[in-house]
């Protein structure tokens, strides 16, 4: 620590030197930034410029350097100096390209550049080089929970890539739901005929693969640890418990079919009304012959009712579409037509949805004479002569069709384990002594799939409609439990082909996770990151905000109820750092100080100069790139803003806001990703947390005697380059209207 040596390098290339006074910037770095070495170079990112820096590191013992050139997102390879701490002052995308040309703007442009140099120097002084979290032994084995098509696909993908894999299957055989099917829909051209499921082949491959170990009739009794060091206790039928040490987990626990007994209005529970699974059983029993009903009568006419108990807006049944059932009904109608073309097969659909190449399959069924009717079924009566009453939506009339058999296309219900919201509420009640809650907790625990020992609950969080977690919009494989990946219909409704593709992806994610864990690095989306949060527990008040707010369940509690960080589970978002009211959590290269010192480094003009200063805290995943891209497109914005990239809006600690306002900034703009149900936040909850925290900042503002408009939070997508510039200019205009901050000069 003693021998820190700070250096600043200012690039005058890319036109920077033509527009900015580089000599003045150098002086700032020297005098205010207190950099021991300050150099400028006309082309810093070329071999010569980089060599200049390398030489200083080697010969001058530079340990910390600030590169004042382009954005930190540019020239990352040229400016990669892994042995020293590096900060970047964004003169090109952040100043040169976004501030209007012309002498009128020379002064404010130069001031902006000088501030960025001050900030870069201040930041690097607070940084240390992350050491990583290399562990002696880290397991690269992969656990697959569920032995159906998804699970087997994931296991084979991982094992074929050379990773030892352990499969845990609840039932006595591999194959899952596919075992119940006579055939599956076709996956390859000409997409015309039902195909064998292939489950038997896969089962054989999995059973004989040298790298795959299968536990049948087994469930997970307990899963403890973190990526690279999960300890799974596997309860076997005999009562014995096997232990497996694994590095990552693929949860492929599939689905159950929606119970048709819940659909009495559609004949659920009545004779000769079956669901698709029921029809598969009949078709299997027929074994290529005529399909017969339970009463032995040969089926001569059959009606398929699509969307049975699905896409239901009333809130009683499934609100979603299960995606596979149209193609499945097409396939099942073919079972009849292929055996006997004279069987009348009618499919009543609302919208026939056949993803992938299903349209060809649909056509093939039409060729075979399957009748498709756009309609909405109202009432189905079973019995010897079944009747489906429906509204024909093309002919616009109420009508009916009679048949020997009615098949209801019901949906997929995910087997995702415990709903964590329910769990947390129950646990909280149980802890305060509620007896029924205690009993409920035991019951809930029994339905858990993973039985994680995480403080946040025994399973992965659930997404909409009870499906296992997924970063649905941007990174569908990601869950909020690092190293645990959901695949197949447990994640969203899907057919077998999609499930297999999904499982392959999940296997690859699991491989990444074990490799990253072994290298002591973070997982997605900061997979290169060696830093991890450290807490000064002496200062911790045990408020538990970090534990609760960490979107990834990375923080447990130790025996003394202090937060216990599991680095391998941590994604390095900094949400815990933003949450901590006493600011004891920090990363080596990102902390309350690295950002706080930048905020304080900015030169705040006094009120008579009439130059507002607005702080922008921009999420580095979307908002900061959008700002850069505004520059690349030469979209201009006000020179009164100073932008600091943050890992996630969730990492924004309110101290930064109050510090900024106290030291005379006129406004603070926070830019993060979309929050809410359709979030795009890379860290899922970070942006939402930030919005929530800022909604509470009103009191603080009031105490300071400031208007609520002085803090603004915006949702910005990576494509919003033109919009960010507009938002900035609008905000500057708004600040000018309410007037400059009265706090100037007190900071």
């Amino acid at each position, binding site marked *: 620590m003693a021998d820190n040596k700070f250096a600043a390098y200012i690039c005058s290339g890319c036109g920077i030197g033509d527009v900015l006074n580089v000599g003045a910037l150098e002086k700032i770095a020297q005098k205010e930034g207190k950099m021991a070495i300050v150099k400028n170079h006309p082309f810093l990112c070329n071999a010569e410029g980089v060599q200049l820096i390398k030489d200083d590191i080697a010969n001058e013992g530079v340990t910390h350097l600030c590169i004042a050139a382009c954005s930190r997102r540019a020239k990352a390879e040229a400016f990669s100096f892994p042995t020293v701490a590096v900060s970047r002052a964004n003169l090109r995308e952040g100043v040169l390209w976004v501030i209007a040309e012309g002498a009128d703007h020379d002064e404010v442009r130069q001031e902006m550049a000088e501030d960025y140099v001050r900030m870069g120097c201040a930041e690097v002084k607070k940084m240390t080089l992350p050491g990583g979290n290399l562990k002696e032994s880290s397991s690269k084995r992969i656990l697959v929970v569920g032995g159906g098509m998804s699970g087997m696909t994931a296991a084979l993908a991982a094992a074929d890539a050379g990773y030892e894999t352990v499969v845990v299957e609840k039932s006595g055989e591999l194959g899952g739901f596919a075992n119940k099917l006579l055939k599956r829909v076709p996956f390859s051209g000409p997409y015309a005929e039902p195909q064998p499921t292939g489950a038997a082949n896969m089962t054989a491959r999995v059973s004989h693969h040298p790298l795959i170990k299968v536990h049948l009739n087994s469930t997970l009794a307990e899963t403890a640890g973190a990526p690279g060091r999960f300890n799974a206790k596997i309860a076997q039928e005999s009562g014995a418990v096997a232990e497996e040490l694994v590095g990552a987990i693929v949860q492929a626990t599939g689905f159950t079919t929606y119970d048709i007994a819940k659909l009495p209005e559609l004949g659920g529970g009545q004779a000769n009304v079956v669901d698709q699974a029921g029809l598969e059983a009949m078709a299997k029993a027929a074994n290529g012959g005529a399909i017969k009903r339970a009463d032995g009568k040969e089926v001569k*006419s059959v*009606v398929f009712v699509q969307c049975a108990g699905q896409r239901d807006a009333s809130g009683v049944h499934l609100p979603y579409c299960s995606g596979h059932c149209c193609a499945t009904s097409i396939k099942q109608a073919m079972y009849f037509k292929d055996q006997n073309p*004279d069987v*009348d097969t*009618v499919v009543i659909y609302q919208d*026939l949805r056949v993803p992938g190449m299903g349209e060809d399959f*649909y*056509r093939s069924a*039409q*060729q075979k*004479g399957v*009748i*498709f*009717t*756009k309609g909405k079924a109202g009432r189905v009566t079973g019995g010897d002569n079944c009747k489906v009453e429906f509204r*024909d939506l*093309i*002919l616009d009339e109420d*009508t*009916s*069709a*009679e048949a020997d058999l009615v098949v209801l296309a019901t949906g997929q219900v995910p087997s995702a384990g415990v709903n964590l919201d329910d769990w947390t509420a129950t646990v909280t009640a149980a802890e305060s002594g509620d007896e029924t809650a205690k009993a409920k907790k035991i019951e809930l625990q029994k339905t858990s799939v993973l039985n994680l020992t995480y403080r946040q609950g025994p399973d992965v969080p659930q997404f909409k409609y009870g499906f296992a977690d997924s970063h649905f919009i941007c990174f569908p494989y990601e869950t909020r439990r690092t190293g645990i990946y959901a695949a197949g219909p447990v994640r969203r409704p899907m057919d077998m082909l999609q499930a297999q593709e999904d499982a392959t992806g999940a296997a690859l994610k699991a491989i990444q996770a074990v490799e990253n864990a072994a290298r002591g690095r973070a997982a997605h989306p900061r997979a290169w990151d060696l830093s991890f949060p450290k807490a000064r527990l002496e200062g911790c008040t045990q408020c538990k905000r970090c534990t609760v707010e960490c979107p990834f369940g990375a923080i447990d509690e130790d025996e003394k109820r202090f937060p216990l960080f599991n680095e391998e589970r941590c994604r390095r978002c900094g949400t815990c750092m933003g949450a901590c009211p006493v600011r004891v959590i920090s990363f080596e290269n990102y902390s309350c100080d690295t950002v706080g010192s930048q905020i304080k480094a900015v030169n705040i003009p006094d009120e008579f100069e009439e130059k507002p200063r607005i702080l922008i805290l921009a999420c580095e995943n979307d908002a900061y790139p959008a700002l850069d891209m505004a520059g690349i497109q030469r979209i201009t914005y006000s020179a009164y803003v100073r932008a600091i990239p943050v890992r996630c809006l969730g990492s924004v600690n309110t101290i930064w806001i109050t510090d900024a306002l106290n030291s005379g900034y006129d406004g603070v703009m926070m830019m993060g990703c979309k929050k809410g149900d359709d979030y795009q936040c890379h860290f899922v909850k970070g942006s939402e947390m930030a919005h929530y925290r800022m909604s509470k900042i009103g009191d603080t503002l009031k105490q300071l005697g400031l208007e609520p408009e002085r803090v603004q939070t915006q949702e910005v997508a990576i494509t919003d380059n033109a919009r960010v510039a507009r938002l900035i200019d609008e905000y500057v205009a708004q600040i000018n209207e309410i007037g400059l901050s009265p706090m100037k000069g007190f900071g």
Partner: protein
Amino acid sequence: MTTANQNALAKYKNNFLKEVEANVEDGHWVKMCMQCGVCAGSCPLGPHWEHSPQKLFMMIRAGKREEVLGSDSMWMCTSCYNCIVRCPRKLPITHIMHGLANYAHRLDLAPKGQPTRDIAKLFWDNLAKTGRVNELKFSLAMYFKDGFGQGVKNAMAMQATGLGLLKAKRLNPMEIIGGHKCKDISGIKKMIAKAREIEDRRRGLA
């Protein structure tokens, strides 16, 4: 096949669809319609008739035999081919429309007094007589198809046009007596009879 006329048809069973497939030109395409409605939206006659091609095809599948064959919609088709060009399922819709019209006509289920049907009949009878269309007789037959009084009125209304055609030598008044014919009328008649026989046999209408 005429017995089918009396058939009580079960709804949403294949019976009528199969009848159409067997007897209507390009009728085997009807099952391939995916009910997208593009034809209905493309047809310039759309607002003027009761059943769009889309609806007719659904009605066939729903077993509405009387309504389909009694519909005047397929008679309204102008053969603009908009629908054929646009149908994503490549149904030869125009041809099916004509096929349906023809089949309904043959079964005599087509609407009586439907103008297109009447004109088509007049045209065909005129043509089949001499092997050539006698334009003068055809026009007169059309004028007078709704009776003598109406015929005179029609003729008066078209007087100027008629005189113009005469002057320009586009109309020969002598055509009224016999008019010119094909050389081998009996050969033509035999040919038509044979064609009809083949078609009837193919459609089971013999």
